[in-house]
């Protein structure tokens, strides 16, 4: 079980309808609708430049939409409930001269947490994350990864009900990406709503209950990851010893001979109308020489291609590859 499958509260943490934002002659976001249930891990998935950051900034009240409405925990103006929200922007930043515990406390103070409480919690958080040796260091003395962790802790120090991450995995190595995934799941287990943007499909696929796929400033799909994957019919993957024979008549007309590998021939086709059992009988009776048979469900990547189009999917892959490079 890789995703958080716990049932979440059915009330909405975020609700947005018809959000539009234009910067000069560029239409950055064009009518975005999003509903994020409380307690969910929600992903906004799209290539760079698709409108993810602008959407998040509108949801958080950093910028106002030109059109449309947004509500966070029922409030039209997110700043009114700033204490309930934590935000980690894509472009990370801290005051270089500040000590780590002060930086965390300052971020908490911006959300209404008293400084002394923030400083105490900051020290505890750093100890819990193996950074006790760096508590009294200045931010400028930290490695990039450590500074990112400090900022992440500052995002959480005031115990927000909603945490918004903009490209949280960007710039992290594999180990820290894994730690962040664990942290996100832990937050959701505690009832915190987590919304994050990403251009890396497997993060969304592993973590999210729901996603909004965004491309060109629009959201062609918003809903559960399962429902997105189910938009593409499951495929039967069949491996046979024989390439020809009477059994071939049992395969659907659109069955595709994908490849020959080792001693087996690989076939892919949709689940036939008569069902798998009937197919199986005919294959056995026709001496197909079954080596393996499985039903493969479409991945989120396939769903993304189906929903957002080839160009957006290619861009998404390029962005993800760019991260690795």
């Amino acid at each position, binding site marked *: 079980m890789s995703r958080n499958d716990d049932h979440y509260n059915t009330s909405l943490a975020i609700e947005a309808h018809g959000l539009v934002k234009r910067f000069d002659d560029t239409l*950055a976001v064009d009518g975005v609708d999003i509903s994020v249930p409380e307690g969910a891990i929600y992903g906004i998935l799209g290539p760079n430049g*698709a409108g993810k950051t602008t959407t998040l900034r509108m949801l958080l009240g950093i910028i106002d939409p030109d059109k449309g409405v947004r509500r966070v925990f029922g409030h039209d103006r997110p700043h009114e409930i700033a204490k309930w929200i934590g935000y980690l922007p894509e472009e990370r*930043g801290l005051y270089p001269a500040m000590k780590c515990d002060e930086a965390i406390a300052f971020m908490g103070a911006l959300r209404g947490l008293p400084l002394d409480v923030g400083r105490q919690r900051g020290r505890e958080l750093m100890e819990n994350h193996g950074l006790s040796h760096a508590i009294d260091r200045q931010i400028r003395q930290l490695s990039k990864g450590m500074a990112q962790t400090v900022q992440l802790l500052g995002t959480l120090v005031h115990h927000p009900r909603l945490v918004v991450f903009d490209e949280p995995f960007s710039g992290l190595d594999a180990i820290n990406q894994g730690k962040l995934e664990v942290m996100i799941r832990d937050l959701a287990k505690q009832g915190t709503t987590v919304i994050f943007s990403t251009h890396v499909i497997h993060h969304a696929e592993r973590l999210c209950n729901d996603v909004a796929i965004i491309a060109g400033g629009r959201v062609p799909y918003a809903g559960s990851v399962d429902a997105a994957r189910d938009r593409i019919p499951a495929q039967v993957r069949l491996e046979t010893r024989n390439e020809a024979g009477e059994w071939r008549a049992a395969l659907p007309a659109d069955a595709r001979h994908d490849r020959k590998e080792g001693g087996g021939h690989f076939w892919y086709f949709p689940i036939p109308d008569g069902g798998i059992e009937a197919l199986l009988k005919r294959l056995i009776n026709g001496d197909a020489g079954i080596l393996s048979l499985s039903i493969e469900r479409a991945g989120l990547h396939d769903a993304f291609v189906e929903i957002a189009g080839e160009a957006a999917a290619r861009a998404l892959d390029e962005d993800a590859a760019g991260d690795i490079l």
Partner: protein
Amino acid sequence: MTDTASRLPLWRAAFVVARRDFKAILFSKAFLFFLLGPIFFGAISIVAGTLGAKAAENNNPPRLAVMLDEAESAAFEAAHARLDDAIGLPQIELVARDEALDAQGLLADTSRNFGAVLSGSLSEPKLSGTQDRIARWEGEVALLSAEASGGTGTPLPSIALEPVQSSVAKTRSAQTATATGAITLLFLLTMLLAGMVLSNLVEEKANKIIEILAAAIPMDAVFYGKIFAMLGVSFVGIAVWGSIAGAILALGSAAIGPVPVPAVGWPLFIALFVIYFAMAYLLIGSVFLTIGSMAPTVRDVQTLSMPATFLQLGVFFLATYSLSDPGSATELFAVGFPVSSPYAMVARAAQDPAIWTHVLALAWQALWVAIFVKTGATLFRRKVMKSGPSGGAGKKRFGAKPA
């Protein structure tokens, strides 16, 4: 629906930003330079003050009051007329003896600007005035007395010198110097602070911190926090410099001699200087902070802030020019124009004892400070997240999938 417990009030949010900025600046190297600044500023202000005093003297030079009997006064005036073209002489004004004023009274008459008074007779002249003034005019008075007595060949009479502590001319000159020095100090301080608040904001944008602030608190609070933090820093600086200056004056008063008093008196003048400084800074600081919100890089800041810098220079020259002619149309314009008003009024505080004008001017300036700061905060909120690498424009690469 609004849960006020779920957000910081504007003033508290501004305080969080101001507290951070205040501490950060106070413990930075830049603040040390800021504290050392008055050494340079002081030197510049003294030079400017001296030049201002000279300019004021040229514009309205002190005169020599001639208080002799009628015949000798006429002879002295005729001698002055003969020699004035050949050598530079102080301007003179004949004063009838029946005015019943002694030399001290004439020197204290604020309507006449006398630098010294000649009394006695041409053979036994007596010159009253401040020490430096009678020392400067002693030769000219002896020459004129000899010329008036008999012309060429007449021996120069011995002048009896009667020094006094002060004269209207000396006081005016000192007050003009104080006014010019105060304007210069005000100008340099506001320039320095506006530059500091600007670079602080640009650094914050470069450090990508601005988005964290923008997400947590209203941008108005960020603006107010930044501008008042710098004001607080400047007050610390003024307190330090004031203490040092006070200590120097207290310890070295004997060596320094009597310090000329501004027209409103030193305590009120210092208080007004601090208030006018706050007004001048808030006006120009809000302009600079707004400029900073629109500029993503230091280069852009330099380009955008140039008009504001020119405006400030213009204001400085306007106030300096107008201080030598109180009550003129130029001076009244400088007093009424919001950005130059603090400069012109601090000059007035040095030269004019009237208090009500300051009450009026401060109310007027407070109105404009409110307008400037509010407008600045509004523009700041609109612009600060639209510029720079974080801005949303120019990133779009793809169209949506065709339906």
